[in-house]
């Protein structure tokens, strides 16, 4: 089973342009807030109508602007888990679930309900109203309700945005257990790279309304292709770059770093993760820096550095060390640091896709 989306929508000055493919696995739609993730889900679910494009789910055309196909949400068979769960406040848990069961006689519906209540550990809560439930219980009701409507795909819109982090972690484990039984594509919208890393197999990065292609987790975290993707994967340091064979020239830092591989001609920026900057005595890619500031984080120390050759006004280089390593060298005003050649992320401008993807 699969979902294929290629849509475009203009909303004032905002231009949404999304292409993505999702198979029988959990695919993340990752992007900063306001980049159009929720709007994309709404278009897929049929709540918002795209200006043009095509949406196909398991060979069923749900939307096609050229053929004039636009199925209403009721006929798309998509389970949509809304951010605040959207349980009907005027109905009990039981009725919330029952109203979503589409097929069968009254007795069969009752049986489906009973199974769902058991599976989602909601027994005893049948007569409660949504406002009487905890966040976790609400989420379970919402999920039970969605699965009872027998969807062909599940759409999750920031499932944990309403919860605090302690609760969130437990619920995340629970949700991934419950989702594991689902046969079909799952689209998981998130802005949290940790959540994506723990729960998803593939990732589609969305940057200011434009999708950046679907990649595997491995590709996103080890070889992000654009600065937007690198930022979402948690990379903190960026500089303009000029490709020079196997190396890059970084004019802002006054450095040339070896990359150990041929640098693609469309490389415009490099990204360096804060924990890939290490104190060194010398060797490949070692360069002198000045310590600007030291910030103690919860479990690590963040040191803001300025490469000796850096131009005025360039943002500082961020180095992240465990506290012991920093203890050993702290107090020095000047240091030598290095970056492994393979740790340098070569980035092309966001929004431009390489030719082979088109």
């Amino acid at each position, binding site marked *: 089973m699969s979902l294929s989306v290629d849509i475009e929508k203009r909303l004032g000055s905002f231009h949404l342009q999304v292409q993505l493919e999702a198979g029988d696995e959990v695919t993340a739609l990752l992007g900063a807030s306001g980049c159009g993730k929720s709007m994309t889900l709404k278009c897929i*679910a*049929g*709540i918002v109508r795209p200006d043009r494009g095509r949406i196909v789910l398991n060979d069923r055309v749900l939307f096609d602007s050229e053929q004039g196909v636009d199925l*209403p949400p009721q006929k798309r*068979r998509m389970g949509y888990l809304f951010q605040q769960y959207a349980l009907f406040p*005027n109905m009990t848990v039981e009725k919330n679930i029952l109203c979503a069961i589409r097929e069968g006689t009254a007795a069969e519906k009752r049986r489906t309900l009973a199974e769902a209540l058991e599976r989602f550990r909601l027994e005893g809560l049948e007569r409660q109203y*949504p406002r009487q439930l905890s966040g976790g219980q609400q989420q379970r009701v919402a999920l039970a309700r969605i699965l009872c409507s027998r969807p062909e795909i599940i759409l999750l819109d920031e499932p944990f945005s*309403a919860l605090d982090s302690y609760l969130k972690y437990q619920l995340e484990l629970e949700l991934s257990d419950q989702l594991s039984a689902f046969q079909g594509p799952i689209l998981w919208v998130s802005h949290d790279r940790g959540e994506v890393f723990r729960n998803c197999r593939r990732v589609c990065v969305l940057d200011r309304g434009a999708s950046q292609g679907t990649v595997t987790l491995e590709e996103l975290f080890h070889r992000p292709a654009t600065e937007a993707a690198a930022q979402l994967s948690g990379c903190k340091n960026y500089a303009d770059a000029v490709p020079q064979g196997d190396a890059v020239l970084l004019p802002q830092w006054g450095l040339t770093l070896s990359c150990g591989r041929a640098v693609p001609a469309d490389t415009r920026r490099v990204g360096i993760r804060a924990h890939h900057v290490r104190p060194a005595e010398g060797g490949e890619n070692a360069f002198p820096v000045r310590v600007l500031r030291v910030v103690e984080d919860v479990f690590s120390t963040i040191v803001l550095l300025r490469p000796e050759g850096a131009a005025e006004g360039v943002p500082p280089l961020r180095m992240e060390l465990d506290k012991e390593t920093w203890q050993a060298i702290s107090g020095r005003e000047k240091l030598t640091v290095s970056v492994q050649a393979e740790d340098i992320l070569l980035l092309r401008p966001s929004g431009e896709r390489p030719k082979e993807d088109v």
Partner: protein
Amino acid sequence: MDWFPLWNSLRVAAISTVIIFFAGVFAAYYIARLPRLVKGVLDVVLTLPLVLPPTVIGYLLLRLLGPKRVVGAWVLETFGIKLVMTWWSAIFSTTVVIFPLMYRTVRGAFEAFDETLAYSGQTLGLSNTYIFWRIRMPCCRQGVLAGMVLSFARALGEYGATSMIAGYTPGRTATISTTVYQLWQTNNDALAMKWVLVNLAISAVVLLTVNMLERRDFLVEGGRRRRRA
């Protein structure tokens, strides 16, 4: 004491409230979906009766429904029914006067309704009719009921437009308000006072009902959802 004016006032108010329930709810629902400019214009037009003097409304209605006017003449000719100076004439005037009250109150309630509930219902396969009557209306019940009670009260007290279009015929078109005026005109103070007391009693009950609706969390939940972690 002849209780006809009470009975007449009650039936006129009840019928116009039922009409206004459907008219107000559907106007509020569909107008909220229109483009902003059209919505703004319709808002002004539909709220006009709230600020116009009832006599102006009565005058306009007479111009429209009178036996020699466009609509009135046509209805008289086609169905043989007179639209003015009958007990049901008052329904026209009260309906027009109370429409804005209902429309405004219901629109406020609908605007507070969380649209994602409707989207969620749609993705679950529920029909739009089901969503409207079983989710949207129950969630907005407080506002809709308050609008109906207020409209009913206003209809009961309508005087200006009603007296113009239905006149005052004892036992036929008399309502509480036109009766009070008539009794005062004819120096029948004692009876006028009785009707004033009846009116006060009804108004008190209505206001108590409105307060109860607003204060008590008597329905499961208002339109807005409460967030709980």
